[in-house]
């Protein structure tokens, strides 16, 4: 068993070296496919973070009447947090709202002076609510309308921003679907091209396969070396793609962070390096092995 395996591996590497030009061409095609796959993974992450960043800017605010008791507001906050649609709820008291207002207008002496002259805090306490998904804001607004604390709510910002939020929710949902579709299309094209290249590479050896059958090679003995070659193609293509892509990712990282605040593409690449490598190997080696097995099967039938 071990001897047979060792012989299969030996013939795999021998085939790889002795079919140098075919091996080189196949790796080149597989390399392009892996680069497309890596690009899809990176663009997928960039798109996801961009969508998250926009989504994070959407919220609805509930403003309370000026004499609303704080414990009533906090009760409403707790009730909101029990909803599965709610991601977070931030309470901003009247005093905090005033401090924020002062900070924001510290450079404007007219406004600062006008605030100082007022005897009473004119700002209202509020709850800022973020939903898990932008489509869920209407449900949260509905909950607020039906809650017993209606009498202390002065205003819910959703009614004013409803059209914008709904439109944004649709755009984000569409962007996600387009992203998935693009990934699928590109991955399919890459798989088909690589698959066909490996089919052609093995087709050029069909005479050799017939001779192996003639001298009594078992199906595993014939298939094995081609599977080994498929693995070698995949590993080399993935390693080469990683080496080629790394400097590009490093160079593009600062530009990406300008458009998407907080996004560190290089950090993402390094942080998920082994996951990235694993998926790529699964993709590259998977194509190599599966296409080899399928093509060889055709030549092993009587």
């Amino acid at each position, binding site marked *: 068993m071990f*001897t047979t395996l060792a012989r299969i591996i030996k013939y795999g590497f021998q085939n790889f070296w002795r079919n140098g030009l075919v091996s080189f061409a196949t790796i080149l095609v597989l390399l392009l496919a892996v680069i497309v796959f890596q690009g899809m993974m990176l663009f997928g992450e960039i798109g996801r973070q961009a969508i998250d960043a926009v989504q994070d800017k959407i919220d609805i605010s509930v403003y309370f009447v000026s004499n609303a008791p704080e414990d009533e507001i906090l009760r409403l906050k707790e009730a909101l947090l029990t909803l599965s649609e709610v991601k977070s709820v931030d309470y901003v008291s009247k005093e905090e709202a005033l401090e924020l207002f002062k900070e924001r207008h510290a450079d404007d002496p007219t406004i600062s002076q006008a605030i100082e002259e007022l005897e009473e805090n004119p700002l209202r306490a509020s709850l800022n609510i973020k939903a898990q998904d932008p489509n869920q804001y209407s449900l949260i607004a509905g909950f607020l309308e039906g809650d017993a604390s209606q009498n202390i709510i002065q205003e819910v910002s959703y009614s004013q921003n409803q059209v914008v939020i709904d439109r944004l929710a649709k755009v984000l949902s569409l962007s996600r679907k387009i992203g998935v579709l693009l990934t699928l299309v590109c991955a399919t094209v890459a798989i088909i091209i690589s698959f066909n290249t490996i089919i052609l590479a093995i087709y050029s050896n069909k005479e*050799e396969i017939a001779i192996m059958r003639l*001298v009594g090679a078992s199906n595993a003995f014939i298939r094995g070396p081609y599977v080994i070659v498929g693995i070698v193609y995949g590993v080399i293509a993935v390693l080469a793609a990683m080496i080629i892509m790394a400097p590009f990712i490093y160079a593009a990282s600062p530009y990406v962070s300008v458009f998407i605040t907080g996004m560190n593409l290089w950090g993402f690449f390094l942080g998920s390096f082994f996951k990235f490598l694993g998926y790529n190997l699964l993709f590259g080696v998977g194509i190599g092995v599966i296409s080899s097995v399928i093509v060889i099967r055709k030549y092993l039938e009587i």
Partner: protein
Amino acid sequence: MITFSNVSKAYNNHEVLRDISFKIEPKEFVSLVGRSGAGKSTLVRLLIGEDKPTKGRIVFGPYEINKLQSHELPEVRRRMGIIFQDFKLLPKKTAYENVVFAMEVAGRSEEDIDEAAPQALELVGLGKKMRNYVHELSGGERQRVAIARAMVNQPDVIIADEPTGNLDPVNTWGIINLLLKINELGTTVVLATHNKDIVNQLEHRVISLDDGMVIRDEDKGKYILT
């Protein structure tokens, strides 16, 4: 050892072999003769399990060839040594590697291979050229490699389909003498040929085919086609 019982083969309703029956005993040297298109190569293809008969039964030792599944074929092929007109050598390997490959697929040990492979090549007169690649050898030398490969696993039968078809007279007789030597050592030989001179000088059993049928089967026969 080999039995054909009422074997027929048709391609697209055209019968190329019709009701073929014969028996070959161990250690026999049998020439299978006939004009081009008589059905010799089809018969060889059926015997080595490369194709299945439309009707009839083919038995080789304990195996019923016509009923073999794809995965059972390698075991049978290892008990046959097969030689073709176009040599069918692995082109990217040396003479030695071609012989070794046949031994490795048969599961022979490394020690066995190190001893038997050079011996087989010495026996066919290629001791000094065993490290040459196939494209570096002449037609006669390539056929000698094919013979070394066919005999190295000590098969029960050597099946040679027009082995001298691509060779000059000197190489032709070199190959035939090798087959005779193998037969003398106890291996059954089935030789498909349309070379009249060879058959007439061998004076062994001759099965003559014409239009897909056996028309003559004689011990110490001659090449006679009517």
